């Protein structure tokens, strides 16, 4: 049985330097690369290329470069996004950024957990997907199981994410790409219209504008490796390489696998009413390998769990650092013998469980899910706006700080990269407030008010905690000690 001991701050267990280039890169890939995006994006046909290019220019490249510069500059600090934003805007800026990253997860967890459960049901027995008890049980096994893995520290969670992402995201992506190539080489008809450069230009109108926010944030999570700064062997050299490798893997797998699906499945069949697995089933049946559907469902389930793990562990580690610095009440400041922020993980799991209960057992209302998705988007936009603003500000406030990786081009270069990223997320924040067709004009006002109010409530606790902060919060750190 573990025993609690109060130790002075900063004297906890020294982080183990267990992460190299590929381990770091795969943490980012785990957070971003998801098979479930492919069929949805394939619905856009050739114009999915245009959407991906927009997301890459306005978000993937700026965030990768910003992450590389900030992570290498502040490689001796834990907390990832928190450390970066705190350096630029003080505790308030850093705390708001990391709290928004953490709180948006809590709203998003039920969505990804429901996806995991319904995808696994496809492999077991599709009828299960309509059973709320099954859904909730599987969701909780995935959620608390991932939390348990996080409990056992960086070494285990990194291995879990690394092996899991290869099995659940990279292998299925490569398989889909390979089968798409086989489809073309075998002379089978490509269902997309003949290619022309004009086909890749996405349509911009009031109907597609809300989708813009989704595309921009398609690559959200590229900052995830930054939370593991203290566990990285050679952060100065490994980070930029890890960022580059992960960006290339994510972009290549995403674009090619999406096109492979778009080549094989007609648009009207792709309409994802019955879920991603419907598209995957059609894909494999068209290729005369229906037996691959169930194993693929299992792999995609693993990919979902790994994505959950990446988002569950990273921001929790960041919030653990906030607690360690005395900006949260002492209840949050408990670290176990593996160096995991156990109190944050448990509180996160408790809140996530309650929200999942509402999600599964209350009547399903389309508008409610849309509002929750919108709140996730808005909170993420706040995080990334502060990150890009930090990138720019630090070039002015700490111009001479060593930066093993520096975005080229001096001040104009930093404004170009940071400015593009910031413009993308500001625009996403605005269009993220646009309602879907299921809202009447009178409901639309309630929708915007609800999204803004909910976003405000989930972003404001850091300001309250900082207001209530007591000197005693800084003094001690509780470490659950295990056997020596």
């Amino acid at each position, binding site marked *: 049985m573990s025993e609690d001991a109060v130790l002075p701050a900063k004297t906890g267990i020294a982080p183990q330097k267990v992460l190299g280039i590929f381990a770091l890169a795969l943490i980012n890939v785990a957070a971003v690369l998801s098979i479930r995006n492919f069929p949805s994006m394939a619905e856009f046909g050739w114009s999915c290329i245009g959407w991906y290019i927009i997301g890459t220019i306005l978000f993937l490249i700026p965030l990768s470069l910003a992450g590389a510069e900030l992570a290498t500059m502040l490689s001796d600090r834990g907390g990832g996004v928190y450390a970066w934003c705190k350096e630029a805007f003080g505790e308030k800026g850093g705390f708001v950024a990391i709290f928004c990253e953490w709180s948006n997860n809590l709203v998003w967890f039920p969505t990804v957990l429901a996806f995991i459960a*319904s995808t696994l049901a496809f492999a077991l027995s599709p009828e299960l997907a309509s059973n709320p008890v099954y859904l909730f049980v599987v969701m909780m096994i995935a959620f608390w199981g991932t939390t348990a893995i996080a409990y056992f520290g960086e070494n285990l969670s990194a291995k879990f994410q690394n092996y899991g992402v290869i099995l659940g995201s990279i292998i299925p992506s490569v398989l889909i790409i390979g089968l798409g190539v086989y489809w073309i080489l075998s002379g089978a008809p490509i269902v997309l219209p003949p290619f022309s450069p004009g086909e890749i230009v996405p349509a911009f109108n009031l109907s597609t504008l809300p989708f813009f926010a989704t595309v921009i944030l398609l690559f959200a999570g590229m900052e995830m490796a930054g939370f593991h700064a203290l566990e990285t062997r050679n952060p100065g050299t490994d980070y930029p390489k890890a960022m580059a490798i992960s960006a290339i893997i994510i972009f290549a797998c995403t674009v090619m696998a999406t096109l492979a699906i778009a080549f094989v499945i007609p648009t009207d069949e*792709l309409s994802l009413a*019955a879920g991603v697995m419907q598209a995957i089933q059609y894909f494999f049946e068209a290729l005369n390998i229906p037996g691959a559907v169930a194993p693929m469902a299992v792999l995609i389930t693993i990919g979902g769990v790994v994505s959950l793990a990446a988002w569950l562990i990273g921001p929790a580690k960041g919030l653990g650092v906030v607690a360690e610095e005395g900006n949260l009440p002492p209840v949050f400041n408990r670290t176990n013998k593996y160096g995991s922020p156990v109190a944050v993980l448990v509180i996160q799991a408790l809140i996530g469980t309650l929200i999942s209960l509402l999600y599964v057992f209350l009547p399903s209302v*389309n508008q409610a899910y849309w509002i929750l998705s919108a709140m996730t988007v808005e909170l993420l936009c706040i995080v990334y706006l502060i990150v890009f603003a930090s990138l720019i500000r630090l070039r002015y406030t700490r111009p001479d700080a060593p930066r093993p990786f520096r975005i080229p081009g001096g001040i104009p270069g930093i404004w170009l990269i940071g400015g593009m990223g910031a413009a993308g997320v500001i625009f996403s924040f605005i269009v993220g407030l646009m309602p879907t067709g299921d809202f009447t004009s009178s409901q639309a006002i309630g929708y915007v008010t609800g999204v803004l109010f909910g976003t405000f409530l989930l972003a404001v606790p850091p300001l309250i905690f900082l207001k209530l902060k007591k000197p005693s919060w800084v003094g001690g750190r509780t470490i659950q000690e295990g056997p020596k």
Partner: protein
Amino acid sequence: MSDEDTATWIVVIILVMIFLLPIGWIFLAYPAEPHYVVTGEPVREAAGATGITVISASNSTWPLVGAEGGMIYILGDDAGNTLAVQTQRFDSAESRDAAILTISAQTIGKGKTAGTLIVIGDQVIHFGPDPGGIISRVATELREKRVPR
């Protein structure tokens, strides 16, 4: 329980409330659409009323529990834009809600879903990506087919 423990639990409860408040409010503010039988073909009728052409229509049954069949429409406007729409009837509010949950979990990344859903009685109507603003024209007509609560 010491004062510090009490304060700790108060903090945790407040934090839980901060999360449950907006989320609980959202679920209460938007009550579920009642389950009732919708007659006719609402999408075809809404398209006809707004000058949208039904280019093609075919039968379809989703591989979901309680799905009773529906249609796949390809709608088109005068500018040549097309839109795929799927409709599906469900035998109960529970099976319809399970379908809504499944579809809503298919978000792209941490964003929203690619398509749009409209629920009318026993029917779930799924619109694919809309390059020409067809949804906004059809949706107004479709919502008027709902039985007032």
